[in-house]
């Protein structure tokens, strides 16, 4: 990640939203203990969910984008944000993998419009929902649906300090074992995507007696094929395996390809 420039006393932050549920930017407001401290260290110049007025005025030292690119306007918007920003961070499954709305990429977009909207011809949207990094260079992608508050704080702090964020690309199993959680896949043969899913959530699903459903997307070197083979052995149908890999990060390469193998 490039260094955060320090030409102004406080770095200027812009928070932007594309197609999304707002949950990831809400995470910023969920930093109840740190929000005011953050406000002292960063000049939050654009964050429509929390501050007025709503017109962005760049340039930004750090821009944070939530949401996927799913309309022609958003295609232009990400270019403008990139032009106006020194460091560009994308947060959440939508911004980093297209989000759940990328399920449209596997279906017929016109059908989807017809199902939801009475007058589909009025809907201006792209046939695909794609991650921001497909359109402009991104300095760091923070994963998760939703992102983890601690990781967001680490990302922002690392940015301010000029260090590499201590955000690991390991599997959920690492967190599961560190947090002393009993593996639900081994004890209950529950389908669990933890072994191929990017860490960050704190392994909450196994802690709550359910298998990981992959909302942080694939880890690096995600060995989805042997895991899917094991799921088949354990009685899961191809259809169920396809659905499992095709959810919040369906458009990420490893999960997309695995879901397609079970079509």
């Amino acid at each position, binding site marked *: 990640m490039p260094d955060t420039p320090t030409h102004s006393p406080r770095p200027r932050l812009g928070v932007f*939203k*594309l*197609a*999304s*549920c*707002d*949950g*990831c930017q*809400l995470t910023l*407001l*969920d930093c*109840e*203990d740190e*929000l*005011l401290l953050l*406000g002292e260290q960063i000049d*939050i110049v654009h964050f*429509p*969910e*929390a*501050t*007025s*007025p*709503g*017109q962005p005025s760049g340039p930004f030292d750090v821009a944070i984008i939530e949401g996927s690119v*799913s*309309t022609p*306007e*958003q295609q232009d918007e990400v270019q403008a944000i990139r032009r106006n920003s020194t460091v560009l961070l994308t947060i959440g499954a939508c911004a980093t993998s297209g*989000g*759940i*709305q990328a*399920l*449209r990429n596997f279906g017929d977009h016109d059908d*989807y*419009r017809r*199902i*939801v*909207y*009475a*007058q589909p011809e*009025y*809907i*201006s*949207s792209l046939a695909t*929902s794609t991650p921001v990094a497909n359109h402009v260079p991104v300095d760091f992608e923070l994963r998760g*649906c*939703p992102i983890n*508050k601690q990781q967001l704080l680490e990302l922002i702090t690392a940015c301010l300090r000029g260090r590499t964020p201590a955000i690991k690309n390991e599997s959920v199993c690492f967190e599961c074992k560190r947090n002393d959680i009993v593996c639900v896949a081994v004890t209950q043969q529950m389908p669990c995507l933890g072994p191929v899913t990017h860490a960050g*959530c704190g392994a*909450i*699903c196994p802690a*709550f*007696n*359910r298998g990981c459903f992959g*909302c942080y997307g694939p880890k690096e070197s995600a060995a989805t094929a042997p895991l899917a083979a094991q799921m088949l052995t354990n009685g899961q149908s191809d259809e*169920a395996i396809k*659905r499992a890999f095709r*959810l*919040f990060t369906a458009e990420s390469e490893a999960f997309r390809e695995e879901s397609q193998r079970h079509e």
Partner: protein
Amino acid sequence: MSDEHTVSGEKTYKVDLLTRVEGEGRFHLKVKDNQVIESKLNIFEAPRYFEAFLRDRAIEEVPDIVARICGICPVAYQMSAVRALENGLGVTPSSAIRALRRLLYCGEWIESHALHVFLLHAPDFLGYDSAMAMAVDHKDLVERGLKMKKAGNALIECLGGRAIHPISIRVGGFTTTPRASALNALRDDLANALQDAIDTVTWTAALTFPDFNQAYTFVCLDHDQYPLEWGDAIHVSGSGRFPVEEFFDHSQETHVAHSTALQSHLRDGQTYLCGPMARLNRHHERLHPTARTALAKSGLSLPVHNPYQSIVVRAVELVHALAEALDLIDAYTQPEAAFSDYSPRAATACGATEAPRGLLVHRYQMGEDGLIKHADIVPPTSQNQAQIEADLVSIAPQLMALAHNDATHLCEQLIRAYDPCISCATHFLKLNIENVNAPS
């Protein structure tokens, strides 16, 4: 923030990006010779097609999927979804599970209302652009709100694993239930937050409100408790109640004169308001005694007909949610079973709960194969949208006497009083087609 165009006595009030609301919207109010010629709450949030891709997903995936409609009130979506699905599957969660769900829902109300009251709405009354700016002069106030918000989030995290998109809600119950000790650990913070909430009622009630009483039709869930996670009937002020399953028969989409947008109205063409005001006006007697006392002390006269006063109503509901959460924790013993089992069957069923912003109705058609065949979801902001536009028309005469910026701000504040959740509304915009296509 706003532009003024005065062309032959025509005035336009608009904000191109509404702030301190969830999602992306704008409003546009055109007045000519004291007559409103156009009132639009435009929503340009990108569509996400939830109802389409819910098709052919498994029943057990629905709570996870619908949560992603809204990061602010995911629990509400999960609650309405499991209500509808359980109705269809013939599953009745145990009373212990219902209590736990109510507790979880309290967490979301606390979180969402504290967010709105302190971080989004209060800056309007005190004249700041944001809570962060407000904190410079009113640090205690903002910290009080953040503390309350944190207590609500902690409750959601304890029951649901995380504050946003919790993971433990499933058809028939929870994936697992907490130990009593885990909930008791939250008690102190909730009790402190309750005291803060009571103070908040007093503080909000003392604010100055624009004079804007409207003759609303109020719609909310009916239940023998203050409505949150449960209720089988929907009440319409002035005309009575009907079963939740008949919601789609009682609501309809019509054209309104000033807009080509399709909006949600009752069958008689009436715009209506759902949310805190509707709930309080109908159910104030069912408030927790602590909340009733706070309400009485506040001097707020019922029924509330001024949307600017909704900040007081939310504060009262905050008291209610915190007091009830404490009661539920005190009464809690960890249930034997975290969930009841079910077998898939073909069915169509509705379920409704009270999201922080108002009535949230889900309808699912399920197949024997355990897959969803059809989904309809009506979020509160879609329902309130026509009412918001109507309110903008109604407030127009007051704007004439104000400086343009003040007038625009009054409009924005009015919209904000509804705590609109555009992210939610947008995915179901049968209600407002034209506006979606209107970005400039």
